[in-house]
């Protein structure tokens, strides 16, 4: 995991989306983008 990137403020751009997905390395690579989408789909509910 990229510790330096972890402490950086999120950029809400295409690169930022990819960065966040890449940091979800506790998940299989093919699930990471879906995990970010999953987070977006919970906004307002938690």
């Amino acid at each position, binding site marked *: 995991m990229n510790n330096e*990137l*972890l*402490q*950086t*403020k*999120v950029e*809400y*751009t295409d690169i*930022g*989306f990819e*960065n*966040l997905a890449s*940091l*979800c390395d*506790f*998940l299989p690579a093919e699930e990471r983008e879906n*995990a*970010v*989408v*999953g*987070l*977006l*789909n*919970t*906004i*307002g*509910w*938690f």
Partner: protein
Amino acid sequence: MSTEQVLTERLQLFDKTINGEQTNRVPTLSNDFTWRLLDTELDIKPSQALREFDKFQQITYEFQSRYNYDCYEMSGMRNNFKLSDAVGGTHSINDETGAIQSLDREFMQACELEEYAENPIKVLWEKVAPRAFGDATYSQLVSAIQASYEQYAAEEEITTTLRTKYGVPAASRCSIFAPIETLFNQYRGIIGLSCDMRRNFSQVKQICDKNKDNYVNTYKECFKNGHRGAEPISVWDANTTMLAHSIMNAKQFEAFYWDTYKEMLVAAIEQKCTVFQFTEASILKFADFFQDIPQGTLSILVEKDDIEMIRKLLPNITFIGGMDVNYLGHSSKEECLNEAKRVIDTLYPNFVFSTNKMMSFRGDATRENLMAVQNFVLNYNPNEN
């Protein structure tokens, strides 16, 4: 009797009930959330249990041991406070009363509806997420995602333990929000969507239509192997939460809700599957829409409606609810038992015993009353009335 036999008996009891057949007792369904956390004898505060999944699990098993419900409307956690905490959420939990407060926020603006219809992920990431997460670091969002996965795992464990240790089936095996619910509950809020339905009718309709296939196909996939699919472990096949109708008139309900929902119901009917509908607020004014659904398909948990009145209008629906929490919280044990008997004698058959609201606050029940009522319902044969 083995746990497996208990599970099988419960499933058979629910099947007969949903089909409108006679049974030697009525099934019970727990409609509770934070009351469970206030009732515990474990030294755990609600705010702790809602953030530490293992503690919530312990309380749930203690609750089931005490009340012996046949099924749970919601066996796990409704909201993920650990996720909320990770991104600076606005929830406030009152450990004394069980009250949870959260702001009604508009994460998406009305002018973004059209763009959202075209490319939802882009709008959610570029416009909605900054309002929800603000200046969060990647670390915070990764923690939020981890909290989601922890919650899934904890809920799976609760469902499995309730089934394998207590013989309690899950309520359903698939559930997603209708597209209009997503706008209502998540991105536009109560005020925002109320305005949109009047000022931006076509954009809201476009969003519902564009997401209809995903909604219906998710359920079709669930229904494809028929009732209960490969594993007989849940009472209903599908579960749906109906909240957004609370701000609609009949015309809006038809356009934004029914147009989507009826396709899911048709898919369920075709595959002889069953649907559980949790309903906040009243659906009485929409009763006409439900008249042609065949018996054995839809069960509706009603909260605000007069259940006896709506039952007369819709004899084809299995209704769930009936027991007024005002009795459970504020009357004597004898009064509670009399009311429980009256409710069953009035609504049986084709009826699942539950409460008329999600038990959340201390005043929603006393332990003595709830234990007495549960014990009565589990042992009362309505045919001998």
